[in-house]
Each structure stands twice: as C-alpha cells, then as structure tokens.
C-alpha cells in the first residue's frame, strides 16, 4: 500500500503503528493559537482529502497487470502441461493432463465435498482452539515473570523443531479419532499465535503505560483498554500463519489415521494410483485453505476497523 508521509511527520520519531496511519494528511492544519484570534472554522477536515486519482487508462493498465498477467501465466502453464503430457503420452497415473483432472473433479465432486467436510471442520476447530489457547497462554506468559522464565524457552524450542514428526505420537497417545487430529493440529498452529501475541502485548508504548499507571488504572483496565487492542495487529499476523498450519496439521493427521477426510482420500487415491484424484483433492484443499485464510483476513479487517 502506498503511504504518503507528510513533511512534518518526518521530523518526529514515531512508532510503527503511528507511521502506518499517517496517510490521511499532507499539510498539518494548525489551528491558530490564541482562540480569540481564530478565523472562521475551516471547511472540511483534512482526513477527507482524497488522493488524486490516476488517469483512467493507467488505472486499467495496472489492473490488467496485476490480475490478468498472473491468470495468463497460469493459463499458459496449464496449456503447456496439457500439450506436453499429450505429446509425450505420459501415463495418466504419472501425470494426467489438466483436462483429465477437471473431468475427474466433476465426476467425484460429491465424494470430494463429502470428504472435505470433516477436514474443514477439524481445521476450523483446531484453529479456534489454537487461537484461544495461544492468546490466553501469551497473556499469562506476559504477565507472569515466573511462568515466562519457566515456559518461554520451551515454546521457542517447540517453535523451532519440526512438529510434524510428532504426529504419530498423537496417534499412540490420543488415538485415531477426530479429537486426536484436532489436538495435533492445534499443537501445530498455536506457537505462532503465542509468539506474536506476546510481541503484541509488549507493543504498547511505555509512556502510554505510564499514563495508565499515573491514572491508577488497574491491570484489567490496562489489559482490556490498552494492551490487548495494541496487540490486535500482531495477533492477526499470528492467526494468519496459524490457519495455514492448522490445515497442514489436520491433513498430516489424516494421512496417518483417518477413516475420512481429504487427507485420507489422497492416501487412498495414491494407493489406487489415481493421480488425477489426488490432484483434484489437492485443488479442493487449496480452495478451502484460501477461503479460511480469507475469512481470517476479513475478520482482521472488521476488528482493525474498530481497533486499527
């Protein structure tokens, strides 16, 4: 996004949050100092000033560049894929052409959708659980020095290791039910939320905290009115990573143990050498993943409109 920085703002050191929100203004309108000498109210607040729009043609060209170009590249890629696969007569089980994947997709669409239900629901459940757990744990670790010293290194440790390797252990310990998959996916997803929420809860400017202390605000007030809202952008950046990780967690768990789900379908299809079905399932997974991500982004928009 393009930001316009007013010449005046450049003089003062600003925190990032403020810097982000400088766009609205270019010339600081300074009200005269002595109230009695104030001229009649100036029209219109500076905030409503619009950025001058580009000539229409350039706008279209930019739109074309940003949307049609990628689409054309993908289209070209599919075309080359189709042509090459057909030309070299690659076996369907190795690499089916896009047209065949499409046919297969329409054939098995109801089955795919049916299998997608548990995968999606488990992903959502894990993501929600990870968000709640992550925010609560981050809050505890931020407020308690002792808990922080005790657990933060462990969290960093788990953040760094390949957690996927632990998936079979969840089967051993929790079983092969939906609960096991949700727990594993929650475990996968919650570290980035903890870490980013902790960063966010520390993002409140010190002077703001001093002001609160000076007003004898209690910790609950400081948390709900100041620190948590300041953390919102950070929390969402953690959540955007988490939603992807939750889906990975569910699919991996389904690979290992599941009677149903798209992960299960992929494993099943590969045992049948039905490569087109695998690719169709992956396509659907991509769509679900993008939708869930989109929902989080939408939620972020809504919340930052309130707390941005």
């Amino acid at each position: 996004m393009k930001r316009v920085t007013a010449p005046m703002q450049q003089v003062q050191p600003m925190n990032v949050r403020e810097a982000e929100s400088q766009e609205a203004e270019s010339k600081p309108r300074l009200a005269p100092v002595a109230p009695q000498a104030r001229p009649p109210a100036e029209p219109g607040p500076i905030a409503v000033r619009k950025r001058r729009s580009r000539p229409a043609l350039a706008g279209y060209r930019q739109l074309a560049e940003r949307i049609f170009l990628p689409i054309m590249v993908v289209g070209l890629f599919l075309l080359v894929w189709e042509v090459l696969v057909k030309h070299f007569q690659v076996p369907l089980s190795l690499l089916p052409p896009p047209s065949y994947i499409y046919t297969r997709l329409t054939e098995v669409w109801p089955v795919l959708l049916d299998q997608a239900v548990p995968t999606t629901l488990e992903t959502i459940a894990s993501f929600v659980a990870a968000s709640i757990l992550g925010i609560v744990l981050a809050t505890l670790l931020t407020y308690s020095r002792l808990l922080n010293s005790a657990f933060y290194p462990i969290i960093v440790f788990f953040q760094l290791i390949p957690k996927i390797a632990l998936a079979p252990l969840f089967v051993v310990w929790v079983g092969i039910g939906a609960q096991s998959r949700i727990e594993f996916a929650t475990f996968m997803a919650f570290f980035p939320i903890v870490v980013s929420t902790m960063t966010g809860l520390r993002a409140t400017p010190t002077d703001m905290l001093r002001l609160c202390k000076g007003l004898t605000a209690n910790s609950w007030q400081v948390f709900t009115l100041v620190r948590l809202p300041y953390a919102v952008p950070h929390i969402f950046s953690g959540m955007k990573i988490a939603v992807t990780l939750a889906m990975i967690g569910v699919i991996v768990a389904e690979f290992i143990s599941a009677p149903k789900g798209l992960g299960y379908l992929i494993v099943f299809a590969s045992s049948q050498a039905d490569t087109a079905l695998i690719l169709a399932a992956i396509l659907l997974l991509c769509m679900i993943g993008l939708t869930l991500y989109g929902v989080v982004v939408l939620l972020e928009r809504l919340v930052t409109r309130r707390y941005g």
Partner: protein
Amino acid sequence: MSKHLDVWKVSKIYETPSGPVEAVSEASFSIREGEFVSILGPSGCGKSTLMMMMAGLEDVSEGVIIERDKEVTGPRPDVGLIFQEATLLPWVSVIDNVLFPVRILKRPRRDYEARAHELLEMVGLKDFHQHRPAQLSGGMRQRVAICRALILDPPLLMMDEPFSALDAITRDEMNVALLDIWQRHPKTGVLITHSIREAVLLSDRVLVMTRRPSTVVCDISIPFERPRDPRIVESAEFNRLCNQLRGYIESGYAADQNNRYRSAAAAVATTE
C-alpha cells in the same frame, strides 16, 4: 504562597544488569502553588526520572518528596501527565481520548463531556472531536494530549519534553498555546525541556540540571509578569536571561568535562 511540591535530597539509583546507575543525585528544590517551573538539562541527566518520581511513577531511592504536606508514595490521578509523544490510543476518537482518564476512573462520562468539548475548543480542535489521532498532525495530537491531561482539572501538570517531537514552527505555536492555557487554567506546572527559550517564555522559575552528579545546580527566577505576552521573546531582558542560562548550562557541561578528565586521570594513576 505555600509549597505545592517539596523535593528534598532526592536520589534515584537504577539497578541494571551492568551495575547500579545513579540517575538523580541529591536533588533539592521546591515548587510553590501555581508556579510554573521548567527543568533544563542535557539528555540523560535524569530529568525524566526526576519527573517520574514527582509523579509517583518511580520510587525515590533516597530523600523524600512532599506534595501539600503529604509524602508522595505513588501515582495519583490529580497529576496531569504529558509526554514527548502524544500517546493517544490510535483506535479511539479524539473526544474519547480526551475522556480516557474519566473512563479509567469510572466517573460518569456525561459530567465531563462538556468540559472535554470546551478544552478541545480552547486548543482549536473543536471540529475534530470525532477524528482518529492518525488523521491529525503531530502538533494537533499533542494538543489532544494536553486536553486529556486537563480533563480532570488537576492542580498539577507535568510535561516531559512535550514539544520536542514537533518542528520549530509548531513548537513556537504550542508554546503560545500553553501560555494561553495557563492564563485560563492557572495551576502548578513542571515542564522538562531542552529549549532555553521555551523555558524562559513559559516559566516563573527555571532549574538547571547537570550530568554527573545528576542534580539541580541552579535556580533562576523569571521576572516577567503574567499574563505574559509572547512578544517578550523579542525583549532584551528575555535574551539576557537566555544567555545567562546558557552560560550556566555550559559551565555545567564544563564541570562535567573536568570531572571526566579528573576521573580519567585517576584511572590512569591507579593502573600505573
């Protein structure tokens, strides 16, 4: 006039991983009711620490601070605080930011709304009460912070380099604005600043702090009567006072330098 604040032999030692740091060392002065006092000094000399102790935000390590016959032991909402950055809540409108102290103290909002609007009008932000801070310039945001500090009508206002983040022109305007505010709402004021001219224009007294030892080394009365006309800055007397203060500050620096040479020499002597 009676004393509002009495600072007596106050020291502050911060315990840091690399050893104790003495931020303020035996500072003593007092501030009368309704007096406006500026504290001048180089950065890092302990001005903010001193203010924080007066506001009850930091404990004193040694000495005592008395406010109106009671020892200062902690923060109290009847001290208005203004910092270098406006520190407004970015997601809250200007009027809600001004009313933030009311919200924290759980007082009825409608008792203060009229006053909030009056204050905003006084600083020339009447039409901006529904704006978000991001839609305002730095100077306007600092005006909002001033309104917020005044909303509870505190008898004491403390400002830590409130205009340092502003450009020179805005800063001059803010100085005049503050002079005007003081005419309308007389109260005790403590202003920490780097600017000698700002200190002389606004204050009844100027204290100068030095580094090493971080303490108040001189105390100068500014004789201009109130209400003050901002044009006093053009007078010879104003410039004389500024030069005098500059002299004190430079001699403070010189003492600092001497100390440094002396301790360096001592260090050399002990290693030999």
